């Protein structure tokens, strides 16, 4: 199986367990309908996210990456999301340098009670990604082809 | 036949009853219009079909004897005429909720940019409305009737025309609905459908904008003249004349701007766009 051709894009979400993952659950419990493109990876804290995860995902063919954590000052681990904010902002700034449209990556803050907000975030981000051309698939990547030839 | 003997529940009228009465008065000088309140009163929507309310204009007038006798259900040669109502969506008539006009709801939402379902009928708009006394439908009922898609009732309501656009409703709405804009938009729709609305307000609006169209700026005296001629209310504000004339405030001649055509062009293109729009529909 694969991403549904023409219908879906490959969007990966990294969500902290305590706020945003809970927010996505709340959205589900509330039956707030959302596009189906997003696949969520659960991490304990947005501070756990290494910018490399994001770049790796985008280089491997993901069309978009969405990161969401607790609101600043409301981190389950006191200050994890402050570190996250710095790293993620830096990551966003760096994306053009690796040839990735920074619009493919967003980070936001959603609490466990904000189901409706989560619906909005997912809907908006999915629409944003659909505006962009599909990312090159892993196998299609010219860089990789080049690498293989060199290798 | 003595009108006072009529059963109270027998006479129907529609939301534009007063207007029709006035039109008829123009046609026939010897017309008598009956009111159970014995004074000119704006009919309230909820009254339709239940009680007799029309305008008692002047007892000295006679009545056009056979006007609409067939429809009225009253004996021919009756000295009274009866205004017929449009029973749809008013009074105690049962509203078929399934007949709700969804297109109307969507159109109001689209043109106003407001979400109608946000209204929870607290009535704050009505509570603060300065013009409420003149309304046939209070603002909150208009909101409710838009929610249930009662297009006919909303667009034929007089309230739309009596709204003074003071925006108290918008300012105090707990759900941040721009109620005043919704009133504006309903007025636009009624106008596009060539509904008569409240004659005097329409004439005033027209007279005002005519002066703008011709001169580029309003001309107060011109607006008044247009209003008096348009409504036949030749005595409007004549009591103010001796007060204002000595103050030399009313310019007899309009202040015409240089780029008159520019402004009249706006009106011309507006009229054209309205025609196109109507044809398009």
């Amino acid at each position, binding site marked *: 199986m694969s991403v549904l051709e023409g219908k879906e894009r490959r969007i990966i979400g990294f969500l902290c367990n305590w706020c945003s993952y809970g927010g996505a659950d709340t959205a589900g419990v509330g039956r707030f309908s959302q596009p189906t493109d997003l696949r969520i990876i659960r991490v304990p804290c947005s501070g756990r996210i290494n910018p490399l995860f994001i770049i790796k995902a985008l280089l491997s063919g993901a069309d978009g990456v969405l990161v969401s954590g607790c609101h600043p000052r409301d981190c389950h681990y006191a200050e994890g999301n402050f570190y996250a904010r710095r790293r993620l902002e830096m990551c966003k700034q760096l994306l053009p340098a690796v040839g990735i449209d920074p619009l493919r990556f967003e980070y936001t803050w959603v609490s*466990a009670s904000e189901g409706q907000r989560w619906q909005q975030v997912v809907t908006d981000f999915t629409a944003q990604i659909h505006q962009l051309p599909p990312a090159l698939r892993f196998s299609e990547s010219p860089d990789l082809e080049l690498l293989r030839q060199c290798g | 036949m003595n009108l006072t003997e009529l059963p109270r529940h027998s006479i129907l009228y529609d939301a534009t009853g007063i207007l029709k009465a006035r039109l008829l008065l123009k046609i026939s000088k010897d017309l008598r219009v009956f009111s159970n309140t014995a004074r000119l009163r704006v009919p309230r929507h909820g009254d339709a079909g239940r009680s007799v309310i029309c305008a008692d204009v002047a007892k000295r007038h006679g009545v056009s004897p056979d006007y609409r006798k067939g429809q009225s259900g009253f004996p021919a040669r009756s000295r009274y005429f009866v205004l017929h109502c449009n029973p749809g969506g008013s009074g105690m008539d049962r509203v078929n909720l399934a007949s709700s006009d969804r297109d109307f709801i969507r159109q109001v939402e689209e043109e106003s940019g407001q979400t109608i379902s946000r209204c929870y009928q607290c009535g704050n708009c009505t509570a603060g409305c300065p013009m409420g006394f003149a309304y046939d439908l209070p603002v909150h009922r208009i909101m409710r009737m838009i929610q249930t898609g009662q297009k006919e009732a909303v667009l034929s309501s007089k309230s739309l025309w009596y709204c003074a656009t003071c925006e108290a409703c918008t300012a105090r709405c707990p759900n941040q609905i721009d109620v005043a804009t919704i009133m504006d938009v309903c007025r636009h729709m009624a106008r596009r459908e060539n509904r008569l609305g409240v004659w005097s307000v329409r004439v005033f609006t027209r007279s005002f904008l005519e002066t703008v169209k011709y001169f580029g700026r309003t001309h107060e005296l011109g607006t008044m003249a247009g209003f008096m001629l348009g409504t036949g209310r030749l005595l409007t504000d004549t009591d103010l004349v001796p007060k204002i004339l000595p103050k030399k405030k009313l310019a007899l001649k309009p202040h015409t701007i240089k780029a008159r055509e520019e402004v009249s062009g706006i009106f011309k293109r507006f009229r054209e766009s309205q025609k196109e729009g109507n044809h398009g529909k």
Partner: protein
Amino acid sequence: MRIGVFVCHCGSNIAATVDSAAVAAAARDFDEVVFSTDTMYTCSEPGQTGIIEAIKTHALDGVVVAACSPRMHEPTFRRAVERAGVNRYMVEMANIREHVSWIGKDKEANTNKATELVRMAVEKLRLNRPLFPKTFKATRRVLVIGGGVAGIQTALDCAEAGLEVVMVERESTIGGKMAKLDKTFPTVDCSSCILGPKMVDVAQHPNITLYASAEVEAVSGFVGNFEVTIRKKVTCVDWEKCTGCGLCTEKCPSKKAYNRFDEGVGPTTAINIPFPQAIPKKAVIDKEFCRYFTTGKCGVCAKICPTGAINYEQQEELAQEKVGAIVAATGYDLFDWRAYGEYGAGRYPDVISSLQYERMLSASGPTGGHIKRPSDGKEPKTVVFIQCVGSRDASIGRPYCSGFCCMYTAKQAILTKDHIPDSQSYVFYMDIRAPGKAYDEFTRRAMEEYGAQYVRGRVALIYPKGDKLVVRGTDTLMSSQVEVEADLVVLAAGAEAARNASGLAEKLHISYDTYGFFVEGHPKLRPVETNTAGVFLAGACQGPKDIPSSVAQGSAAAAKVLGLLSKDVLESDPQIAQVTLQRCIGCGKCIRVCPFQAIRETDFRGQRKAEVIEAVCQGCGLCNATCPQGAIQLSHFTDNQVLAEVEALCRC
């Protein structure tokens, strides 16, 4: 690894929009998956038995359950595999309900998405290693923050069961909002008569230590071993010596101090005891009004005090307490209705809040239980109550219903008639919300027996005219504008989160919602727990609540605390950071970022290395993302595992 996959139907919750059988079939092709099936209710008894049997039959050593959110049932399935002899951390869940079936109706897309989520879980599970929890000793004491009725209930229940309780109260007396009330609905019994004895019990219970006029300054540690710093505020009175005789309050020459307990209805003295039944009954000096502080000379109280308790030079003190669990019971505050310009924003003295009115009704209040207009002291004959002031109003950022205002307004309307038989009350309401036992009957009594005129509609404007207040509203049921000339207007102000609740939440590492109310562990199934182990909630700090609900929650929180601390030792979550010594270069970055000081420097054969203190690590993984060498890895969320998940998604 031999992996088994179980795809749940959850009745029709999942199966309606996800083809569970197709997902299970697709999973059979995944690496190391040796068994895959779909079940109706995986969490049910037969469902769990099915997992256990499959483990035994197919010699599984890892399990993926595709069902609801792991926040819901991960513990359930961990216990299930443990019963079959598999390490409980060898379970992964794919959330195909909250994140798939409930948010989209396209069955093809959903089934495809569910399959990918299962693949992701399988790839992660392949890198899971068995983990074993450590045990540690717990302190069998509990901290209760807030001395309102909810906190009092928790404290008494815990103390009765033998736990040592530390109670911290911000004000100089416990009792909270309930102590300010005259009567309580729907029984109209006297508030202080039912609360008073409980307050006394708190004071006298040998197991309870009470810090009044104190706040929680800092909290460190973790479940079973919290370290709490309590800041004792300056009262300028040595409470060891103060007997609460009240001589000082009689002689104090500064008699115009703001009366916080009476909500500003009537003044108090600069040195005061909030009310006669205060617990502890100790005097406090309000520096803002005390002449000794404002003019530099006075000292009357110091001279008169028979025990010499007055100490103008008193300094703040910090106290330390060790506890094993914490209950937050910080209650609510009343919405500041001055946000309503149309109600005068505080310009009209005879427009008051419901709590101010409550103080007027109270026999021990500033008016001795007589209803008097603040402007001229006259008895009002026409009283207008306006509900939903600061509730259900998105325009001032309070879209929620405060829940109890309908009821207390009905009570106040009834009491108004009791106090002034020839009075007439009008109640402007939007909806009457009275879903409690005997509640609706109570509001009916206000109308039928006490003649309160209920008017359905909001009020748009209040303005003074002569010595009356013109209240301009709507009766939406009559569909008309209405006007009442009132002598007194009482605004049923809604509830909002207690002042600086968010600050406390941050100290406790618990979540709060947009409005500052604390977030419970699960809206239905974990109402008094939080997502931070060992921290519990009671009462209105979680959301507006009336007295019965607050008391019920107080007891519920106590039960949870007692359950937790009934064991001598607790197990720690082993999903924590681990250092690979060979890779660690001793740069110390992890030590600096750790929010819990859970990493320390250690010497390993003469080299600087990082070491995780297992009992302290909370498993956030901040160090993991910081380490330049990848030497410190969070168990079960290692770099390799996250990347395996990413790859699983990108590859398919």
